[in-house]
């Protein structure tokens, strides 16, 4: 290879890649509005992003998979644990994570910051990013919903979940609300006893939790609900 060819390789390689990259950048920027629901990106979301940066959250947590790897990814945090759990962790990490082997700093956020960050996470959760991360993939939850529907007729626990309107706060499959954590997530994380105890007196297990006590149910009923929720995690291979 002569020097002339070598120089040609340099310019052809560099410029072709650059032109392709800039052209795709131009197109990507046009598509971002639709892919990220820019119409819902209001001032509160922006304020939340500023607070998120001010407190350096991203050097422990990943978001969209980028950042520190020391704490859970926040891309779908809103759908996974819901508004109440997010707020409790932001306001009182020292009590919310008292039993955890990994701690989150108490940064004394203002009420405004807590609301803003929650709005920010809610908006991030809706970004169309090809269904990443896999553990929060909606396809995965769908299988648990199918199971619930299949067993609802014969499972008394499923009937109890309907009767007590759990899904007016919690998500299950693609149904329910994001006020509390998603039931599949609880099932993967907690035992049936813990769930039964929590149902009896949430305040005792998780101080500051907004969930009401279900002490009108019998201990046996609470345990049944616990076993049912734990069983939901089985579909994820645990």
């Amino acid at each position, binding site marked *: 290879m002569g020097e002339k060819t070598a120089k040609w390789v340099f310019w052809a*390689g560099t410029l072709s*890649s650059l032109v392709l990259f800039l052209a795709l950048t131009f197109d990507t920027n046009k598509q971002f509005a639709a892919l*990220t629901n820019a119409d819902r990106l209001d001032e509160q979301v922006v304020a939340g992003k500023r607070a998120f940066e001010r407190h350096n959250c991203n050097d*422990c947590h990943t978001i969209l998979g*980028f950042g520190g790897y020391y704490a859970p990814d926040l891309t779908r945090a809103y759908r996974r644990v819901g508004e109440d759990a997010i707020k409790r962790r932001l306001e009182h990490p020292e009590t919310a994570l008292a039993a955890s082997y990994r*701690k989150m700093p108490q940064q004394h956020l203002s009420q405004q910051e807590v609301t803003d960050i929650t709005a920010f996470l809610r908006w991030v959760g809706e970004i169309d990013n*090809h269904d990443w*991360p896999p553990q929060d993939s909606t396809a995965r939850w769908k299988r648990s919903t199918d199971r619930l529907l299949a067993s609802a007729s014969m499972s008394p626990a499923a009937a109890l979940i309907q009767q007590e309107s759990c899904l007016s706060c919690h998500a299950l499959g693609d149904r329910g609300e994001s006020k509390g954590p998603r039931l599949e997530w609880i099932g993967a994380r907690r035992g049936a006893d813990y769930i039964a105890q929590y149902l009896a007196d949430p305040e005792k297990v998780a101080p500051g939790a907004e969930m009401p006590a279900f002490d009108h149910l019998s201990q046996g009923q609470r345990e049944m609900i616990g076993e049912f929720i734990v069983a939901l995690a089985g579909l994820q*291979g645990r």
Partner: protein
Amino acid sequence: MTYKSQSVAYPYFVVSLLLFALQIPMGLWLAASYSFTIPQSVVDVFPFATARAIHTNLLVLWLLLGFMGATFYLVPEETGTELAWPKMALAQLALLSATGVTAIVGFLFGWTQGRPLLEIPRPLDFLVVIGALMFLANIAVTMIRAKRWTAVQGSLLGGLVFLALMYLFGIPFYRNLAVDWYYWWWVVHLWVEGAFELIAAAMVAFMLIKLTGVDRKVVEKWLYVELGLFLFTGIAGTGHHYYWLGAPRYWLWVGGIFSALEPFPILLMVYDTWRDVRHRTQPLLPRLTWVYMIGMVIIHFIGAGMFGFAHTLPMINYYTHGSQVTVSHGHLSFYGAYVLLNLTFFYFAIPRIKNFPGGSYEEKTGHWGFWLTTLGVMGMSLAFAVAGVLQTYLERVQGEPYIVAQQPIRFWMFVVGVHGLVVLAGVLLVVKHLLTLRPPRAATA
């Protein structure tokens, strides 16, 4: 050393080495935070996030100061003139070190831009820009006045201008998180897989010409090809970071294909080094400098080329993205590509700045330093890789919640920490050895 102004490189090397030594204990603290429970009272005043910001910013700062020192050493010899403004080079060092140290102390008090790797607050960004402009002006004016252009110089200046330009994309506040990360990678990816590679290729070519005595024409010809391939794969290869941030689906194809080609230019660099060594007209001395040089090209290929390729394809990256797999690749590639590059250059340049006869020096401690650090970093990267594969399987495939999946990983982070202690010992030896380099005993006798 042929030109007097080349000696401004030395203080750059000293500051750079001291910051390197500080980076390692911070890393040990991070590893400990993974394997042990740090009490709430400690986390409240010194969170993991702060330690991570310090660990990574020290790395960037010392690597850049090392590159700058190397540039100040290299440019007079390439152009055949003195530097345009050697005093300004020292002022620039003072400005950038002061800015860097202020930033790092600021992190301790929560003064941060709050974006990973780009935590330096915006007011300080402007001081960095001033420092970069001083640097580029000094180098460019020296080259223009000399009117002598070589491919090595071109690659170096091109890389430095590219580096400075990309930094600007990291300064603004972006309202949209996806857009934010899109341009964040213009700084981070286009630095390490673009600008840094240009600078590295120039520094390696320069050292190879000087150390092997191979004809400049041959080295420079292959430098063009290397650079062409680096930029061809590296620029569009940025797409491998755009898979899951809310960008269109075509990035899975573009990122996947271009970044799968990224190992080739590194392989060419390995081949070029090997060819130059075979056609050498001078003996391979000093031995330690060559240990570093060969170590660098090999670990550059393993860390950046192989460990990078391992998780760059979208169907694999869907599961590994944002896990310890990335951390494993990050540590080994930075070490192979840029840490060893700087250290090789220091071992090449310091004996010459100090006018040791034949550029040789007393090597013994240096060998210990090299092997401890290198084996330590390799062991650490393997432990990170095990942690990463576990995390990928438990969290991403099995769907276990993050904190449940982290439990078995804590042991592997302990293994990381143990290797970190070996790295610390190695780095302290390297830094001490380089700062107290002596001519060989036979020469002093």
